[in-house]
């Protein structure tokens, strides 16, 4: 499903690479944590998978497509197969929960009819039934992140990337979001989550890949934060 093959990424002007000769494979339906201290390079992995940055060396393969050599006009359709959530939610403040999710459908050419059918369904799935018409500022942090998850999942992507999705949330709310991601994973979606929340990693007991100074120092099935 996802494969990083001897990937090195050095940002311009950086003294040392963010990722240094990283090789890792992720199977379809897996749930993987990338952990490590700030600046260890774990967020760079998400950016590589989204083709926001290109590797300095090595190959990135996602959904059997070589992202490294992908032509730029193919990127939009490639991204439709990937959902993404972030620490800061990235919701549109002047749109309701419903409109935020529907926006993601409309801008890739889905009709309003499709949105009317699909959006309430996915909002129900993330536990926001009845709050469709609230604006982001009328929702709690956890609820905002649920909207973000709904938006990421509404296209039924094969892969869900989560970059510190619980970074702005209190522990109890974090657990709820993790339950949600776990449920999405059970539908067959591959979930890749970058975090340094040890509590969550220890509770979930899923595969853990630990990165330090751009190198993989541990890759363990059913791991803990350590």
């Amino acid at each position, binding site marked *: 499903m996802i494969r990083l093959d001897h990937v090195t990424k050095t940002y311009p002007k950086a003294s040392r690479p963010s990722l240094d000769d990283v090789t890792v494979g992720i199977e379809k339906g897996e749930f993987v944590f990338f952990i490590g201290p700030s600046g260890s390079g774990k967020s760079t992995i998400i950016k590589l998978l*989204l083709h926001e940055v290109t590797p300095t060396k090595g190959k990135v393969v996602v959904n059997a497509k070589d992202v490294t050599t992908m032509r*730029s*006009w193919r*990127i*939009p*359709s*490639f*991204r*439709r197969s*990937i959902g*993404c959530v972030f620490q800061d939610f*990235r919701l*549109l*403040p002047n749109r309701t929960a419903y409109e935020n999710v529907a*926006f*993601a459908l*409309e*801008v*890739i*050419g889905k*009709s*309003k009819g499709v949105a009317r059918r699909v959006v309430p369904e996915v909002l129900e799935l993330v536990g926001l039934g009845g709050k469709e018409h609230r604006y982001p500022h009328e929702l709690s942090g956890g609820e905002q992140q649920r909207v973000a998850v709904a*938006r990421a999942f509404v*296209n039924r992507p094969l892969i869900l990337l989560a970059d510190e999705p619980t970074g702005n949330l209190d522990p109890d709310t974090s657990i709820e979001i993790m339950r949600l991601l776990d449920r999405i994973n059970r539908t067959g979606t591959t979930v890749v989550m970058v975090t340094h929340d040890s509590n969550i990693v220890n509770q979930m007991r899923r595969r853990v890949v630990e990165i330090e100074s751009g190198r993989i120092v541990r890759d363990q099935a059913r791991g803990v934060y350590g």
Partner: protein
Amino acid sequence: MQRWKYVLTEVLTGLWRNVTMTVAMIITMAVSLTMLGASLLLYLQVNDMRDFYYDKIEVSIFLKADITQDQRSTLQNDLQNDALVQSVIYESKEQAYQRFTTQFRDAPDLVAATKPDSLPESFRVKLKDPKKVQALSDEFRSRDGISEIVDQQELLKKVFAILGALQNLALTVAAVQGIAALLLVANTIQVAAYSKRREVAVMKLVGASNWFIQMPFVLEAVFAGLIGAILAFVTLVLAKIFIIDGSLKPLTTLLTPVAWETVWLQLPILAGASAVVAAVTAWVTLRFYVRV
């Protein structure tokens, strides 16, 4: 359908959100396009006038005061039989004086100071090809009894030089205003892209196609460009009504009239030029500067 509606509302709200900038952009575009249209009209007009005047152009062969009857009749004969010449008219001293008095009737002092026999007699020669003046001049210059050969083309050249200078002036203003308009388009696009940065970020994230993200911005510029073109066209129409057919009316004998077809032709030309230029500027700004 759905997407076009989205794009259209985006364009209109985008233009409205930044309305002062939009107005500035449209005005500079309109000024630039008016000047472009004016210089284009002038260019077409000069060509028109050239044909018109070349048709009437004459070469004046002024004769010496001491020319003999014989010399004059051989000269007239030779001119009439020359392959370059279409027609020859003889103008006597009296005829020359009459023409002079009517031409300068507004300057009675000058007329009074000129004696009837002080003007030379001449042949007015019309050529088959008005450009062959030099050949005729070379042929007859050394003949007895000729004092001077005057080519009216020289005079016309001066007139056309003035019209050409006007045209260059209009083109320069068009270019300067055009550059200002382009910078305003680029700036408007940057402001628009900044005010929609959240939407753009989400669109990129969920995989909206590039054209879909860029189209509202590009159309905003094109829309402003088209309004500018229409304003410029209206200005040209008003100029035709009030200046060319208005205050310049007495000069119709000198200037060939500007046809309505030529004025109408400006609308598609200006609209097309401004739409294309605005679109390209917007797209380049998005692609290389804002990196939307």
